């Protein structure tokens, strides 16, 4: 590259880079920095507070993320297998819709649907499945959060898994069909093993997104412990103004998300060097 072109390209790169560095990269580093500070002293007290106050919340968050991930992947693997083998355009389109519905709206919709006095309970009571004097509440607990996350993330999972399945060559499936393989066998023995790598990536991506979910638990969480980690960070700042502990919790969440970060880093270094 000519020197003048080098300078021109750096000038072009500067404005977008400056915004992301200023409002993401620096705050990201400063959360690590602040997590070791308390009243301007270097200390590990923030982390011991995280351990004392939030260790169950971290487990609770992991539990919700794992359960939702397992459900989403299971449904996506089977559904996409069906969509790959026998095309069904309407169903494929339907499962794209949640992609374009923001998390806050999903949170509100599930709140209206799943609350003790929600629409689901009133439907179930009409057919005599539940007792109205003691209506079960799915919202305001881990199940409500999990159901919302599954509903919303299923769209993304279907998109990613179907993409992986579509890149599996048709001739393999034809060969299996010629030997009489059922749809399920085609999924289990061909589609699944041949797209295992993409599936692992999709899984890591979905896991981080669920771990980091904020608006859904804010909308349909119970407001009482246990809470998801992002809610703890938000409350710690909003109600206590305690940036040290909030940032220590933030750093814990970054560490939990390391799987995806590692994958990204590997792809860049592989592709660009």
């Amino acid at each position, binding site marked *: *590259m000519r020197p003048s072109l*080098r300078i021109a*390209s*750096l000038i*072009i*790169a500067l*404005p977008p*880079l400056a*915004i*992301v*560095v200023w*409002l*993401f990269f620096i*705050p*990201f580093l*400063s*959360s690590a920095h*602040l997590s070791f500070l308390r009243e301007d002293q270097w200390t590990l007290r923030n982390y011991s507070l995280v351990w004392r106050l939030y260790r169950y919340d971290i487990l609770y968050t992991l539990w919700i993320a794992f359960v939702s991930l397992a459900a989403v992947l299971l449904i996506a693997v089977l559904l996409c297998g069906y969509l790959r083998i026998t095309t*069904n355009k*309407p*169903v494929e389109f*339907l*499962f794209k*819709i*949640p*992609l*374009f*519905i*923001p998390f*806050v709206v*999903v949170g*509100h*919709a*599930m*709140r*209206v*649907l799943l609350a003790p*006095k929600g629409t689901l*309970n*009133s439907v179930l*009571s009409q057919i005599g499945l539940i007792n109205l004097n003691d*209506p079960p509440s799915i919202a305001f607990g881990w199940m409500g959060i999990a159901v919302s996350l599954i509903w919303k993330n299923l769209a993304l999972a279907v*998109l*990613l898994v179907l993409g992986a399945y579509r890149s599996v060559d048709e001739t393999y499936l034809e060969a299996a069909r010629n030997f009489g393989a059922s749809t399920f066998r085609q999924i289990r023995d061909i589609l699944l093993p041949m797209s295992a790598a993409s599936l692992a990536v999709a899984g890591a*991506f979905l896991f981080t997104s669920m*771990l980091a979910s*904020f*608006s859904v638990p*804010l909308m349909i969480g119970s407001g009482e412990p246990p809470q998801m980690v*992002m809610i703890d960070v*938000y409350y710690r700042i909003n109600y206590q103004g305690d*940036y040290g502990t*909030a940032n220590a919790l933030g*750093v814990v*969440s*970054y560490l939990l*998300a390391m799987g995806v*970060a590692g994958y*990204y880093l590997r792809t*860049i270094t592989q592709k660009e060097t």
Partner: protein
Amino acid sequence: MSMNRRGLRMAGTVLAAVIIFGPLSSLVIWSFAEKWYWPHLFPQQVGLFYWSKVLQGDMLRALQSGFLIAVVVTVLTLVITVPLAYLLARTPIPFKPVILMIFLLPQAFPQLPVFVNSTTLLYRINQGGKFWGVVLIHMVGALVFAVWTMTAVFKSVPESLEEAAINLGASRLKSFFSVALPLATPGIIASTLLVFLYSLDEFTGTLLVGSPFILTLPVFMYRTSVGYELQVASISALLLMVPGIVLLILLERYMKSEYLSMFGRI
């Protein structure tokens, strides 16, 4: 196809429709419910009372300011991203791996704990709770999305066409404007519309940076929902869904899955 299989297929499609529209349908009913005593299946009194009420007050203001923010975010993002995306797609720009890594970070890590500190930085330059503060925090996500999608768009334009132009004596600049840009336009439009939608729907950054003075529709909806103003919240939720659904229908054929997978995060 046998009768049996066709029936099964129909049942599956209906089931999928119930799973997708079921949770959304109670929003529609709630938005028209003037009186709805639990546990009745349907409201006792339906009407447009709440629709006419919300379309004047705070919600209209939230709608307007959110729309204005999204327009500004989209224009600024487009202007500064297109040249960079072209460079990333075509030239060995200096520090390329570092630049790419910086534009990946916001995808890889949880947003909220970072934005908490970004908010502090914005307050330090007196932009907390202000219009430009919210625009800037939206631009973080918008830029990341735009850089990746638009770089992919420019990469999909065959390089040989530009080489031909350059061999015939066109400058880099000329080949960009008369070859690469026109061919990339459909992809750029798709990505721009998605940036606009991202800004309209953004919640976390707006809540942290904008509160309590800058209100957009997602934040307004959150407040009314947790305040049990269920009709108002449901109407806001429905309005929030409209742009996304319209885009989905419009862009179905242009959208590649890599655009959409980044989009699953709002």
